[in-house]
């Protein structure tokens, strides 16, 4: 579907007419549907329609931003006038400005981000997918005693970007998802876990029954969980929890953290920050992937960046402003969130290693296999790390019993340096993905 960029270009024209020296704008229009089912009954069905226009205005080297969801002429005019007035009272900043027009994306590549297949199923058919997923979880074992429900959602969105220099490009995406959260119970104990499938195309979703059975197995294996004694042992992160470690690396490698000197990766470009087996890439051009996009939030073409290559920090993640502040070039990681420009990753992955995850577990005499992390105990300035964890205790190379109410703690730089096992199980199920990771030792606090 083509996206009309006229509205945007009209708004930018008004901004220059009101005295802006330059301006850019990002437009998002989306329609979404979600349905949740609990214990076989429909719980909540939501239909939504949203739109937002985000505008950035420059008065020389001073800038301001504004956004609105009201596209009436009066409201759009007010937004433009407010942004240009705001820009006049803010301070000059020598690094502020749009990217060089010569570097903007030329053609918009078709990355297969939109599902074109068949007519949209009816709400009843969508609800049935959630019902089937939850039913599979409930039927998996008599110890699945309750459920927080299953949810299906789909979303179609159109994005357009334009600058006052006359650049205007647009693209469309779709996404679909299904998740289930069953509760396992035994002798008064209750444990909840969940599983999900998420894709750009409806047909790429996992079967509802498979999602339900996996969710049930995850909840069941937590029954009988206990604390362990405080100790320092090898810790293995499953792919989903390992992916959260990558998010922390990306946050520390992002331009705004760096120019504020608020990052444990400050002045580390070109130096070793991880074990030599670790390579982390951000690839925004993978066809059909959830994080792919043809251009970034400033119209710069998306690319594949090696962030960490064989343990060495190869690239930061930069938008135009943070790059200029650091005396570097944008890495085309600008992201627009309605509140201006920030830095965001596309498909961020730690590349797979050679080892079967079962072998990684088999190599540990006493240790923790982490399947869930909670809390916000990550210090992005120092890399100090302390989070709540749940998982399974490893005894003589076997998953022995479930563990809860413990913390895992260390420092991210030490943790990445101590990675001594990388699984061969990388699967891009979300925008950030990792294989199973083994860290030689961390402090597990419990009793």
């Amino acid at each position, binding site marked *: 579907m083509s996206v009309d960029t006229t509205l945007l270009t009209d708004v930018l024209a008004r901004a220059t007419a009101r005295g802006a020296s330059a301006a850019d704008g990002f437009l998002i229009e989306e329609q979404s549907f979600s349905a949740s089912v609990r214990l076989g009954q429909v719980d909540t069905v939501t239909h939504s*329609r949203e739109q937002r226009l985000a505008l950035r205005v420059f008065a020389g080297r001073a800038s301001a931003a504004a956004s609105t969801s009201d596209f009436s002429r009066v409201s759009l005019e007010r937004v433009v006038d407010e*942004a240009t007035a*705001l820009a006049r009272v803010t301070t000059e900043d020598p690094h502020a400005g749009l990217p060089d027009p010569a570097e903007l994306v030329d053609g918009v590549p078709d990355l297969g981000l939109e599902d074109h297949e068949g007519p949209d199923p009816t709400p009843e058919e969508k609800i049935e997918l959630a019902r089937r997923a939850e039913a599979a979880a409930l039927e998996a074992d008599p110890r699945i005693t309750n459920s927080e429900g299953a949810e299906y959602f789909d979303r179609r969105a159109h994005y357009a970007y334009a600058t006052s220099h006359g650049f205007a490009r647009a693209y469309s995406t779709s996404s679909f998802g299904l998740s289930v959260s069953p509760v396992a119970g035994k002798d008064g104990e209750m444990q909840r876990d969940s599983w999900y499938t998420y894709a750009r195309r409806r047909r790429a979703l996992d079967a509802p029954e498979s999602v339900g059975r996996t969710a049930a197995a995850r909840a069941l294996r937590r029954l009988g969980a206990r*604390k362990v004694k405080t100790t320092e042992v090898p810790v293995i992160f499953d792919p989903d929890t390992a992916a959260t470690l990558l998010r922390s690396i990306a946050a520390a490698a992002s331009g705004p953290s760096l120019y504020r*000197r608020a990052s444990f990766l400050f002045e580390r470009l070109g130096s070793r920050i991880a074990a030599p087996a670790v390579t982390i890439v951000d690839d925004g051009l993978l066809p059909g992937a959830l994080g792919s996009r043809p251009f970034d939030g400033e119209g710069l073409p998306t690319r594949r960046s090696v962030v960490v290559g064989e343990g060495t920090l190869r690239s930061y993640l930069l938008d135009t402003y943070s790059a200029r502040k650091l005396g570097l070039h944008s890495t085309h990681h600008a992201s627009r969130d309605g509140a201006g420009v920030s830095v965001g990753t596309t498909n961020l992955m730690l590349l797979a290693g050679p080892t079967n995850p079962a072998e990684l577990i088999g190599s540990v005499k006493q240790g923790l296999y982490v399947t869930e992390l909670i809390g916000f*105990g990550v210090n992005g300035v120092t890399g100090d790390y302390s989070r709540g964890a749940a998982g399974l205790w490893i005894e003589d190379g076997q998953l022995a019993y479930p563990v*809860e*109410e413990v913390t895992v*703690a260390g420092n991210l730089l030490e943790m990445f340096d101590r990675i001594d096992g990388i699984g061969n199980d990388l699967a891009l199920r979300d925008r950030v993905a990792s294989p199973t990771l083994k860290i030689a030792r961390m402090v597990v606090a419990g009793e």
Partner: protein
Amino acid sequence: MTDKVARTRPESFFSDRFNVTPPLMERLLGNNLLGRVDDADIYLEYRVNEELVLEENVVKKASRHVSQGAGVRAQSGPRTGYAHTDDLAIGNLEEAARQARAIADRAGRSGVVAVPGHGRPHDLYTLAEPPIVTELARKLDLMRRIDAACRAADARVTQVIVSLTSEDVVMLIATASGWTVGDVRPLTRLNVTAIAEEGGRREIGSYGGGGRVAFDFYLDAERWKWFASEAARQATLKLAAVDAPAGAMTVVLGPGWPGILLHEAIGHGLEGDFNRKGVSAFAGRVGQKVASELVTVVDDGTIANRRGSLNVDDEGTPTGRNVLIENGILRGYMQDRLNARLMGQTPTGNGRRESYAHPPLPRMTNTFMLAGQEDPRDIVRSVKHGLYAVNFGGGQVDITSGKFVFSASEAYLIEDGQVTRPVKGATLIGNGPDALTRVSRVGHDLALDEGVGTCGKDGQSVPVGVGLPTIRLDGMTVGGTAVASSGAIRER
């Protein structure tokens, strides 16, 4: 130029600006919904938000956002149909009502409209000048003074980031029972972040506050200076911090923001939806002992000018002061209309939503523990070896297993009854249903937080408050990296 939204009555605001009048809202509900569902409402919202960021003494961000929309909800039994649109044209509202009503068609039954009693809305935050209308120049001037004060507080401060957000929300809700009520909600928050460096070590500290208050709140008693010096103090303090201890120990929590313990350990577990579904670790435990008899916890949405307060909740129910735990006994849950109806209880004024784009859920307002008798200094002196934690970052809970965490950002060792060395940030972990049974002493120094809390649930963020007197907890697990051997703490 400024849109003086805040001085308007909600009813006339939406009818003047969008031609959406209370009679029209009633007609949409009446024609489409009444008699076929158990409950229904239309929620209108208009929000203006301003965000200013000063960094390196330069205005890095100045932005203004306007959003508006309507959410229509129909409920039948436990089922909810929800549709929202950001285009307030009548045709779109009719379409949203039709989509929401589909839930009732699927349910295939007609119910009775439940009409809970309505009280009078409160008047907790009428301001002569709401913060959104205060002129930009005054705001930027204060932010520059804060930058200077923070740098002046300690020579090791190398970076200062000051952010100031101001917001005004006008809401109007019409329910199927013919009750229409509106609210105008100002909100502001000031935050100061300092980065300090010394000998190649870098640390971050931040402090701030706010509420449903005027901009002058920051000038009163030179509160801004306090925020600036606290941010600098927190950052520089950590430069000398030793590794936090690891393992079970006695923890003393200071007054105010450490009340996040209550929010995570018991607050979420006492929200009606999780209990109606039987997935909370507190389900079916009203009347049982869940805390030490020293503990009384309330959720109070009626405190004037607080960040978590509301005149009416987002379903039109006036907020209340609800006792959750009284002398250790669980007294009740926090309810929205749906879960109250299904559990045969009364709505407690805790039905909240992030915006028109979200259906309401039972949520907290300002949650705190009542003061006890003890001198806080005696509480610290009663501990031989332990942790004294006075400031926290975020927290999180697994409602079903009851396990919760909250992360200390300012904490000290207690050695022989004395507060000694600062330790690095560490996560504290516990089990909700038994954490408050470990409270062995409660101080007389109840304080509410400065007005900085935001709570997330099901992808919806709402402003909340917490509060706590100094308390002692026995046998909490502290997630540091220093594994104690005969009580010695490893220095780095």
